[in-house]
């Protein structure tokens, strides 16, 4: 059952892969980040699966995924209505 919508923002490499800056996705009840990732991999390819470190089953340390502005690492992170996800890369500088 569809319970809400989330925004997904793509930056850096992910913007290149998807050729989009932003999409809106519908989500079901009890949605997790892993489910979103599976959906994105279906649409845009395995680059999205590859952000998960197979040894730890967590988001790799060289990837930056933010949920409402906060970096996340867990695949089973809960995603709810009106959340904003950002797929980016951790790059510093000045």
């Amino acid at each position, binding site marked *: 059952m569809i319970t809400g919508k989330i925004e997904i923002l793509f930056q850096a490499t992910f913007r290149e892969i998807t050729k989009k800056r932003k999409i809106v996705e519908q989500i079901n009840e009890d949605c997790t980040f892993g489910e979103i990732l599976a959906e994105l991999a279906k649409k845009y390819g395995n680059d999205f699966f590859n952000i998960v470190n197979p040894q730890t089953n967590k988001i790799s340390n060289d990837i930056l995924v933010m949920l409402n502005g906060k*970096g996340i690492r867990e695949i089973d992170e809960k995603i709810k209505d009106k959340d904003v996800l950002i797929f*980016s890369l951790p*790059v510093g*500088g000045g």
Partner: protein
Amino acid sequence: MVWNRKIAYIDLTSSKFKIKTISKSLRNQFLGGRGINMYHLYHQIAPGIDPLGPENVLLIGTGLLTGIPALGAGRCDIAAKSPLTGAVGDSNIGGFFAPELRFAGFDHLMITGKAAKPSYIWINNGEVEIRDASHLWGKDTFETQDQIRSDHNDEQIKSLVIGEAGENLVRYANVRTGMKNAAGRTGMGCVMGSKNLKAVAARGTMDLEFPYPDQLLDYCSEMNNMITGSRWARAQSKWGTLIIYSNTNTTGLIRTRNFQLNLLEDGENLEPEVMDEYTIGMSGCYGCSVHCRHRYVLKEGPYAPIFGEGPEYTSLGAFGTMVDCRKMDTVLVANHLVNKYGIDTLEIGGIIAWIMELYEKELLTEKMIDGFDLSWGNEEAVYELIKKISKREGYLGNLLADGFLPAIAKIGKESEYYAMQIKGMSNLHSDERPTPSLALGIATSTRGADHLRSRPAIDLYGLPEELLEEIYGAPVSSNYTSYKGKSRMVWWQELLYAITDSIGICKFQTVFCAVNAPKFEEFSKLINLTSGMKLSKPQIMEIGERVLTVERMFNNREGFSRKDDKLPERFFKEPTKLGFPIVKGKTIDRDKFNTLIEEYYSLHGWDNNGIPRDETLRELGIENKQPLKT
């Protein structure tokens, strides 16, 4: 070998010089680059001198690793007492000058006095000459480098030069080399101008000697493969530091309209992909496998054609968000102008944003406005101010050329509140209200508001806490809005960057960008293969501590202490207005921040007033050269 490397002492007043071998003990205690420069800064400069007087000492130092083919090992450190802040003056520059200086036979230069007429220093295969630069005076930084190459009929000459801003003693004039590289901060170009020193040019064909050349090359190759195989380096090699903007301008961590907002709405024309329209390729510094800077052409508009390099993320803020200009064209023109005139992009961006806010708040008299329309988004005002300040033309140009503190004194006390400066130096366009670690770094930096002295950028990535504990050696919160463990983060990064600047590699290829980038352990191996010196991680960290403590002692002697390790009041009083909920509504908590400062001092072995303790000085072998208290 490392123990034979040379320093040239050059006195511009007498046109005399002498050459000495850098002492073994100095090398062991400070490595090179910034470390050795800071030792000399502390020991060679008398307290209270005029930074623009002949008694100021200009120090140019290559890093211990300069010349190896990895990690951007072409960095050069330039230091003096800062004419902008009166504190430690120190700035780091990439490009190709530092290795050329080493090929020409020197690691360090100590330049004193003042030349009677415009001069430049020519260094060639172990020889030093002071030459007439009358024909170079008045030329921009591009023309000056071209003219020197032409004069010597040698395209391989690399020069550190100043532009008109340095000649005109703008207190934040920079030192430049190549199309884009700049030792931007603390006014080292102004110090060169005060000495009538237009350039330092180097050309050499001498060998660099390494004790284990085969192993060194293998390890450099390993480092380069590791860097180029990483996601962050691949991204930087395509978008440069502009890539940061996408994230900070979404999250709400970017100064807009000086400090009124923390995100530029409708700012999509500053997104990194917009540069694709102008980019003709990427280029890099010596020893770099990343190549993070754009080479661009601007074909249209009143300033076209422009061929330039950059801009960095810093310029995107300086001539974009902070002044509310929303076109990449504006950033590219302004980037070109600051490079041409030789002026710090960050400082001038900060000061223009400030004057625009004062204009909006009607805190300027007609005389101060000087006929300018200082409205937000007026790109022509930005270009004109860059020119007027660099040339010290008009009332406003002259007023702003001296930097924040003298300008505040003339405009009035009320203007101080809006000046986003610390110790007289402008802050980057990042908004640190939601990020205590970043705020602590800019408050305590020895050279004023500064993101390159201790910024723990990885704090923003939400990394696993067990990983952060492994890196920093104690528990650290993975939440960037938390205060827990953040003093330790800043302390650790500060030591890392002190070493990075002393061995002469690029910060971007360290734990500035990514957790798996090189840090103390890799430095230890590289130092050994390059010099034969055997230094453990704790020993290297102790050297970093020594460099920092010497800087702190220099500043203490000039009257700086805890009272100066502060944030602008707006950080405490004005909550952030935009961004994600985790960012919106944030101010810095004064009590928690004070605790952070005390923890940070304690980690360094400094007392609660920010003064290094006697036992710290003893442990680090630093002589206490402070004036006796009476």
